[in-house]
């Protein structure tokens, strides 16, 4: 390296320059020379890498490839898949009204997350991030549902929304009406699913925003305030843009979470009434796994896979490039 140049530089600068040089240039130079693999390096590689590669290949990569393969067969899982039926499974899947409904439901969950959950989470985060008394407690309470298993959350809400002993009973008994079974109503059951998702997950998104708000510099807000910016202007022109990366992340998690939602559906509605509350995964479970229709279920899996991958790549390319 250019030691001569450094040595002749003033003392103060030298410290900065040399540490800069270490970070910016040194690895590139070092890597080429030192990192030539020694015998020791090869042994390490041969011991350290295979367990991960093997596990990943056997339980993640292969099953996904096999899902693509099985989806061309009519197969009940026993013996070898032999009845090749081409794309028929995909035709069956797309022609199944319960699947169409599941697809719409997944979309509705995403819309509800974006329009209700995220603004709520952001609002609460803004309130708590200020010097609010009891902020720590509020944070803890709102985050609590997130650590509970979806199954338990679903079951708790099945009780809470029960027509006889749940919240609807307060209203119906007050007015002397017949008990209203919300979870058994085709009009309302899916709303219940959305409520449970909101209850369970908004605390997680709130935490993301609180973490993001810590990066918003107080000085900048104070400077804006001195210049006479109103609270809303400060939020709109300073806080919100600075929260951009966190918002994009939170949207990403909402969509990914919505696409794989399953555990809440089973205890809450089991997909009913009349298959109106399925998500893609619960559809896959009830129509593919429980009936051992391997080909059909694999086709659903492949559709889900394509949606997930398209979303993940598309979203990253479009929105998360500079994060």
């Amino acid at each position: 390296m250019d030691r001569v140049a450094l040595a002749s530089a003033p003392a103060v600068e030298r410290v900065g320059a040399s540490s800069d040089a270490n970070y910016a240039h040194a690895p590139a130079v070092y890597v080429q020379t030192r990192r030539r693999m020694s015998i020791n390096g090869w042994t390490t590689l041969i011991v350290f890498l295979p367990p991960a590669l093997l596990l990943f290949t056997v339980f993640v990569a292969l099953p996904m490839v096999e899902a693509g393969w099985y989806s061309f067969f009519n197969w009940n899982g026993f013996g070898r898949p032999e009845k090749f039926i081409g794309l028929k499974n995909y035709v069956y899947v797309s022609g199944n009204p319960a699947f169409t409904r599941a697809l719409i439901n997944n979309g509705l969950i995403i819309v509800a997350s974006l329009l209700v959950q995220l603004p709520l989470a952001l609002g609460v985060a803004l309130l708590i991030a200020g010097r609010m008394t009891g902020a720590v407690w509020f944070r803890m309470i709102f985050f609590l549902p997130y650590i509970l298993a979806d199954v338990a959350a679903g079951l708790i809400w099945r009780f809470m929304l029960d027509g006889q002993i749940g919240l609807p009973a307060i209203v119906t008994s007050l007015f002397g009406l017949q008990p209203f079974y919300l979870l058994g109503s085709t009009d309302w059951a899916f709303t219940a699913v959305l409520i449970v998702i909101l209850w369970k997950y908004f605390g997680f998104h709130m935490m993301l925003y609180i973490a993001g708000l810590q990066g918003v510099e107080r000085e900048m807000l104070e400077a804006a305030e001195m210049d006479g910016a109103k609270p809303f202007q400060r939020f709109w022109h300073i806080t919100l843009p600075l929260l951009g990366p966190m918002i994009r992340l939170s949207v990403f998690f909402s969509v990914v979470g919505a696409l794989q939602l399953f555990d809440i559906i089973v205890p809450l509605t089991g997909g009913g009434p009349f298959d109106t509350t399925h998500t893609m995964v619960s559809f896959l479970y009830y129509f593919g796994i429980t009936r051992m229709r391997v080909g059909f279920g694999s086709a659903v899996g492949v559709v889900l896979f394509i949606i997930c991958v398209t979303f993940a790549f598309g979203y990253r390319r479009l929105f998360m490039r500079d994060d």
Partner: protein
Amino acid sequence: MPAIVAFAALVVLAVAVLLPIGLTSLNGFKALGELQTHPFALPRVWMWSNYWDILMSLRYWQVLGNSLLIAALTVFLTLAVSSMAAFTFAHLRFFGHRFLLSYMMLGLLFPVATAILPLFIKIRDLGLLDSYWGVVLPQVAFSLAMSILLLRVAFKQLPVELLDAAMMDGCGYFRYFFFITLPLSGPVLSTVAIISFVGSWNSYLLPLVVLNSESRYPWTLGLMAYQGQYTTSWQLVLAFITLTILPAILIFLLAQRYIVAGLTAGAVKA
């Protein structure tokens, strides 16, 4: 004034969030008749036996024990396998390392559910159906991508000088890994451990597909089985829910800072 309004709004929201959990545990103390007539009042007669009978039952401790065993194995294996792999990706340059890393990162793109049917058949063909390993190994495999991603970044951030000095002194990669990398990576290792523990403790789909015997059920499956058996006795189901979510709540209250940091920081970095 607005501060008070904000505070009041937060209090209302907090009550709304806590209400379902509170009502669940309170109603677990009631007799069935009272639950049906007065679901929103404090119990007039506290039926401690609802809780006591569950606490005294083998089934309760068995499902918690199974969950703990599955989670412990998952965490241990995840840490071992992913830290070794992350170490090679962080420090060794070999032919195809970039390709292999992106190959493993494919795991970030899709959830277990997409490949659950072929996975079931794979587990069956390997003879792992209805065994703990049938749940543990796929869980580890699916958490590898995320764990390797987090660990590799952290391992790379350790000062290069450390590795240089160690190599100069004749310390091999193995010793460097066990005596320098791992001890210096406490925070990120605990992040990975927390994420994989919580994931395993709460997992439902995979054990549902893999396990048949009730004696091997984790608590999530045990809860659903209990509910199926006592559908008409909500008070017992509510007591059972309360007792099964209790460990998670207690640990959360005790180690809140670490859990929140682990679950959110992990998400943000990945």
